[in-house]
């Protein structure tokens, strides 16, 4: 009996042992391995979850920060795939997964620390963004876009703005100046001197501005109805506009003028647009104030003219080392007017004796070139290239130049001078082109009307440009300078013919000369308007009535 009991106990123990062994076997082998008790988290689940986490993180990082992060996604995928084959209890699985995640995190932090992440993040944005820019930058797309923009093909190949030496290489805006206005009060009682305006004038270009005329005025129909009890220094009122002068603004900086104690003249507003009567306590519609800034601004552009010895150039072309192509000019940074130039395909063989220079004058800024003032354009060519006399005006213009014989383009020396004197040139009353000695004679003498009177009035900002041309360029005899006063439009295309110097005389195979155009142009910009909510109250005057 005892033996039977002992045997029974033995059997029960063995059965329990077998059950335990089976449970362990189940836990460590085959499907469901790692699951010690049916309902808990298994090693497989932990690996799968970690893999999923890494996969998602890798995809997101890869999309936003670079394809290299897809490696993390790949690691995640591997974890998901190998998860069913992991036969590991829960605690050990957590340890291994944490180890992997920790190593990935360390790698990520290390990468950010060495600047890789910064390079990616501060670059051109996402890969997709860069890809799109690359498509738009491609030669074929650019050509197509140029064709759409300019189907007649009269414009030279687009030039480019000069590079600005900054750490960020941010291109400056295509502007000379900008003006903006801020008001401290927008709901105002008529005739109450409570208006304050702050006008900011910005020099967006790379030239120093010595003087800007700033005006503050109400837009039509209320022009002239803005009054100030007292105006600051350098300000006065003229034809209903408040005019101020701002002096000496360095490049890429700004100055502010504060207009205070201003009021809207109630009677003026009532008379101009409301039949002499305004209704009390009712907002008067659409009173807008703007600021305008006007100045003369200098600009310059330069075209590289590369010439090559013919036999050498032919060899290069034949051996597919060289391909001639058009080249645009480089414009000074931060200018509202660009003067593009094109002399055809370059490099030019030194056997070519003449070349047509195509110039395009264009306002690319948001301001205006006022039609009542005229820009001055100087075209500086190397002495060997001869003078650039714009042919567009050949029929109408008067050329003044040093004459050795009787014939000076059909005019006698005296006749020409009398028709194209300093005053008519400066005021644009006649279309003139002045070159070299004539320019020097009329323009550059110490007592010339232009230097003494007209420049300070018309273009004080550009005094150094005129000085540079007179004192260095014209004095050096290495260049020809022609000046014209007839570019009053926003867009203009004109040409001149240059005589190239022929065979390159030095032992160099290539020579680059530069054609420079310098302009001083008038420029006016207007701020966005501020709308004032004005009203009157009964008793302010007979122009303000109840109904």
């Amino acid at each position, binding site marked *: 009996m005892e033996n039977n009991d002992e045997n029974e106990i033995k059997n029960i123990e063995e059965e329990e042992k077998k059950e335990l062994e089976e449970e362990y076997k189940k836990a460590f082998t085959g499907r469901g391995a790692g699951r010690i008790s049916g309902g808990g988290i298994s090693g497989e689940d932990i690996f799968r979850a970690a893999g999923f986490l890494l996969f998602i993180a890798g995809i997101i990082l890869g999309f936003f920060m670079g394809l290299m992060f897809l490696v993390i996604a790949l690691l995640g995928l591997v974890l998901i795939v190998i998860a069913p084959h992991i036969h590991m209890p829960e605690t050990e699985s957590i340890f291994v997964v944490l180890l992997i995640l920790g190593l990935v995190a360390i790698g990520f932090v290390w990468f950010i620390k060495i600047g890789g992440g910064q390079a990616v993040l501060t670059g051109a944005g996402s890969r997709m963004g860069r890809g799109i820019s690359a498509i738009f930058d491609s030669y074929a797309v650019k050509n197509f876009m140029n064709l759409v923009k300019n189907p007649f093909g009269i414009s030279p190949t687009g030039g480019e703005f000069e590079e600005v030496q900054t750490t960020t290489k941010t291109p400056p805006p295509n502007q000379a100046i900008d003006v903006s206005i801020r008001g401290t009060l927008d709901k105002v009682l008529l005739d109450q001197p409570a208006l304050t305006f702050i006008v900011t004038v910005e020099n967006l270009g790379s030239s120093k501005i010595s003087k800007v005329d700033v005006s503050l005025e109400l837009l039509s129909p209320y022009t002239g109805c803005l009054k100030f009890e007292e105006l600051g220094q350098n300000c006065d009122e003229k034809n209903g506009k408040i005019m101020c002068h701002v002096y000496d603004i*360095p490049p890429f900086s700004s100055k502010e003028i504060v207009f205070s104690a201003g009021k809207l003249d109630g009677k003026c507003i009532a008379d101009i647009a409301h039949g002499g009567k305004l209704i009390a306590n009712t907002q008067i519609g659409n009173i807008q104030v703007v600021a305008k800034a006007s100045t003369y601004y200098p600009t310059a552009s*330069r075209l590289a003219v590369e010439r090559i010895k013919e036999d050498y150039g032919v060899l290069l072309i034949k051996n597919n080392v060289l391909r001639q192509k058009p080249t645009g000019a480089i414009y000074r940074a931060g200018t509202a007017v660009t003067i593009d130039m094109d002399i055809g395909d370059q490099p030019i063989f030194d056997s070519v004796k003449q070349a047509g220079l195509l110039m395009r004058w264009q306002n690319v800024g948001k301001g205006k070139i006022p039609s009542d003032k005229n820009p001055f354009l100087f075209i500086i060519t190397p002495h060997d290239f001869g003078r650039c006399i714009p042919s567009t005006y050949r029929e109408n213009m008067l050329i003044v130049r040093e004459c050795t014989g009787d014939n000076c383009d059909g005019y006698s020396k005296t006749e020409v001078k009398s028709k194209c004197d300093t005053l008519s040139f400066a005021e644009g009353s006649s279309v003139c082109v002045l070159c070299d000695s004539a320019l020097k004679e009329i323009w550059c003498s110490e007592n010339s009307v232009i230097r003494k009177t007209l420049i300070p009035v018309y273009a004080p900002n550009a005094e150094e440009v005129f000085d540079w041309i007179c004192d260095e360029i014209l004095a050096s005899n290495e260049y020809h300078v022609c000046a014209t006063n007839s570019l009053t439009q926003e867009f203009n295309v004109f040409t001149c013919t240059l005589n190239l110097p022929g065979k390159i005389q030095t032992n160099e195979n*290539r020579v680059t000369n530069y054609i420079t155009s310098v302009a001083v142009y008038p420029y006016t910009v207007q701020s966005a308007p501020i709308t004032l909510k004005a009203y009157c109250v009964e008793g302010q005057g007979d122009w303000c009535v109840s109904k």
Partner: protein
Amino acid sequence: MKAKAIILIVSLIFLAFSFGCIGQETETNETKLDVEEGVGVVGTLKIDELHPGLDGYISLTVRSNLGGEGARNVYISLDNVKPFKLVECGNEISEPSRNRSLDNCNGFLDLDKNLPYRTRGTVKLFPGEELDVFWRLKAPSVNEISDIALKHPIYYDVEYDYHVNFHQSVVFMSQNEMLRRRQAGEEYLIQGESASTAGEIRFKSITQQPILFAFDYQPGSDNPEKDFSFVLSYLVENKGHGFPISDVIVILEYPQDIKPQEDVLNAYGWKEWNKWNGKINVTEYQPGVGAVTKEVNCRTGIGEENCKDWINEIFKDEKINQDRLLVKVIKREDFVESFTINAPMVLKGEVKKELRDRNIPLKIYPFKVYVGYRYFIEGKEYITVYPLRGI
């Protein structure tokens, strides 16, 4: 334990790959020579910005990857330097194209004396050798650049003389032997040994071999054999990034039993060394006259010279048998990337008779080809001069 080890190893491998990829993104690009077999420039001018009126050093590293012979008379020049100037020997400022007046300065190369300031020269650059050349460049003043940033292209040229030679064995086989081999099932398309030349311009024999000839009479006959005409063909390829700036000289040294096919030799553009005056024919169109043929010298890349004198200079170290030489001058204008040249030759009748009578079915003749030229490569870099603004 095993599973844990596998997981750890897999994880570490992936991490290593990750770091590898990340590392590739951020590393600085190594400068390397993009010329497989020639003289080339490693990297760039190593300067890209200057301020007006200031000066800075620019340098070029030139490496010879040539096989076989070294490059000789190597000149490295800057081109299109104006409006920059060059400063040398202390503070001597000079126009780049003016010749050096000083005898010697620190850092002068062997051939620098009397060369223009923009050019540096050395007698020989051995295979695998690197040479660093420097110039001190002075930027134009603010006024010279009209106060606009000047982005000026500066070209650098490297040119050198190079000569190379290769042997080839050409197999001649009688038609009877070819038929016998075919009937016996033996290999009959036997190629002689031939190699391609080293250097940027490769010459390679493309002559179909064996060259089959037929005997005019049976062995033992007293009748003499006629001369047998054949053509040696060579493929000429420019494998480099540059081009030959000189005419290209090809010399073919042939064996005693062979002679050139004189009646068509001229038509193929070959000259017999011993009967040649060292001039080449050039046909030019002259207005009102028409096509005019005249004799001119070879263009050596440096000047013009009697071709024979130039060839003697190029191949002065070679022992060439001047009695059995054919010369061809490929004018640099006629040189294209890839083309074939042919040399019309004759197997002498008496040799054929001897082969016939002595029952020699197969004969291998050695030829030697010499090639000489001056090669030129050009590179371009921009140097920007920024005016100082905001003052």
